[in-house]
């Protein structure tokens, strides 16, 4: 987006200066919570854990896509979900991988086995090597492109469950700090509009399989074009602003966010001292609030997606 000049054009249109910085995922979340950066892309789970739970009021400005098979539970030797308890499972704990695993167990009626799962926290950079190199590691939960690498290199590994079975639950969002949006000089609003405009223009190009857009994006994320296309295949992109706005304003978002926030609360991700799941509340576009009214920390703002849908950007 930044490289092709699309973002600059939109930024100039609104008279703001937008700087795009490349971070490692965890480092970007740290910077966002420390208020060193104004906006960040993250999943809905991290949007609850990090800024919302640390008291940094954040607003979801764009709902980009949901994981439709990008995250998977992999096992070798025909191990089934019912046989998981007791076997060490390689995954990055406290991320969407653990969420996916828990949902897999619950949806298969195995939720009473959850406390018996043996989780081995493995950094994503080493999970492929560890799983492939040592055959005694039988189960891993991770995301693409690591999933594709593992499935390509080891025929005996099968996917037991993936995020296409839990659609709309693992969302990728663009989150902006609420106090940035509410800046009195209006620069926050202009920023949000500029980013939304640039976003939908870029996404339209990717959805239309514009070769230049795809190779540019793949290069920016350090992937090959083939691997990037493979990931796009299992990502449900809200490529039109209408689709995104509709989803953000619908009731399904609330249901899915409820599942996610219950998970976060159960695992103490909302904070050590948080007494109830309602202490970190989410405000939806129709005014509904999940949680305590005076504890709203995460807001979903569909207005920019709506403006994009109406062509008013």
């Amino acid at each position, binding site marked *: 987006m930044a490289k092709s000049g699309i973002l600059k054009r939109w930024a100039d249109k609104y008279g703001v200066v937008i700087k795009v910085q490349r971070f490692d995922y965890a480092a970007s979340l740290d910077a966002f919570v420390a208020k060193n950066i104004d906006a960040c892309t993250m999943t809905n789970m991290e949007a609850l*854990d990090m800024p919302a739970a*640390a008291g940094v009021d954040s607003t979801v400005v764009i709902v980009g896509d949901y994981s439709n098979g990008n995250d998977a539970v992999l096992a070798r030797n025909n191990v089934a979900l019912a046989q998981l308890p007791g076997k060490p499972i390689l995954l990055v704990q406290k991320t969407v991988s653990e969420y996916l695993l828990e949902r897999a167990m619950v949806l298969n009626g195995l939720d009473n086995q959850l406390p018996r799962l043996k989780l*081995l926290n*493995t950094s994503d950079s*080493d999970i492929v*090597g*560890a799983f492939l190199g*040592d055959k005694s590691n039988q189960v891993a939960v991770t995301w693409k492109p690591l999933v594709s690498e593992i499935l390509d290199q080891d025929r005996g590994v099968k996917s037991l469950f993936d995020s296409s079975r839990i659609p709309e639950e693992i969302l990728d969002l663009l989150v902006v700090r609420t106090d940035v949006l509410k800046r009195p000089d209006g620069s926050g609003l202009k920023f949000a509009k500029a980013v939304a405009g640039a976003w939908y223009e870029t996404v339209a190009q990717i959805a239309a399989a514009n070769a230049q857009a795809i190779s540019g994006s793949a290069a920016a994320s350090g992937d090959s074009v083939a691997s990037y296309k493979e990931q796009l295949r299992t990502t449900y992109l809200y490529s039109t602003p209408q689709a995104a706005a509709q989803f953000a304003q619908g009731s399904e978002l609330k249901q899915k966010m409820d599942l996610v926030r219950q998970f976060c609360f159960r695992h103490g991700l909302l*904070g050590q*001292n948080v007494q109830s799941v309602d202490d970190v509340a989410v405000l939806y576009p129709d005014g509904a609030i999940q949680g305590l009214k005076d504890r709203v920390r995460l807001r979903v703002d569909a207005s920019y997606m709506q403006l994009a849908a109406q062509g008013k950007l």
Partner: protein
Amino acid sequence: MAQSFRVSDLTGIQVRPARLWTHSLSWILFVAGIALYAHFSILRHRENPEDRVIPSVTQLVQGLKSSVLEPAEEDDPLDPGASLIQQVRHSMIWKDTASSARRFFIALLLLVPAILIGLHMAVFPYAGAFFLRFVLFFDKIVALSLLPILFVVFGIDEWSKIMLMVIGVAPTLMLDSYNIASGVPKEQIVKAFTLKSSNLDVAYRIVLKQVLPQLINSVRLNLKPLALFLFAGEMIASTDGLAYRIAIMRRHMGMDIIIPYLLWVALLLFTLDALLRFTNRRLHPWYQPH
């Protein structure tokens, strides 16, 4: 004999500060650090009372209490009627300290042969010829880059982390003890032979005995890289341990647990170092490094 203090004394070499000064001056940097932290913490909390990036004293105390009294989240909760001792024994920090300490000390034990190999390299010319060049080269391999290989060879559990520590620190210890043992004057060795000692006598009863205080100091200096490798291994793949807990807490900004853990590790290493220093002084009162 008390001398009057002059400002130029601060930059002087031939001065003897009063006991009061030596004690109080050494605390100033600690106080300054804590004051700086408190300043930033209060600043952030004024803007945002729930801030977790720079926790306040109450948050830190709460974090400390929960790690000392409550079991780790992956364990079962305790009976409500458990005594204080039982609570501490089942607590998160006990579990993590026990598993990290076990790995640390097993690695330390496995490093004793490395020190002895260095000694042999210095005293026995054939051993030196055999080992020296390879150890000099192996020392330059960045041990952390070997971690994926170690995972494959040793599995992802305890042994890969222990071997990471051993492979990382052994070359340094070998080369250091080689240098230290080479410093023993050759005349002593020749003299020992004239007094009818055998080869092993010279190695262990002459050379090792006199360089042992320096070897212990060398081990003290290598405690930090040993701890570093332990942390690297635990942060990358583990089910428990001090660095594992820090890595997990990082995922949701649990600085109120990370900071007490950090200070706890520093305290543990400081105590171990002090213990080694004290043992060295008691065992070898004759060792004056100058």
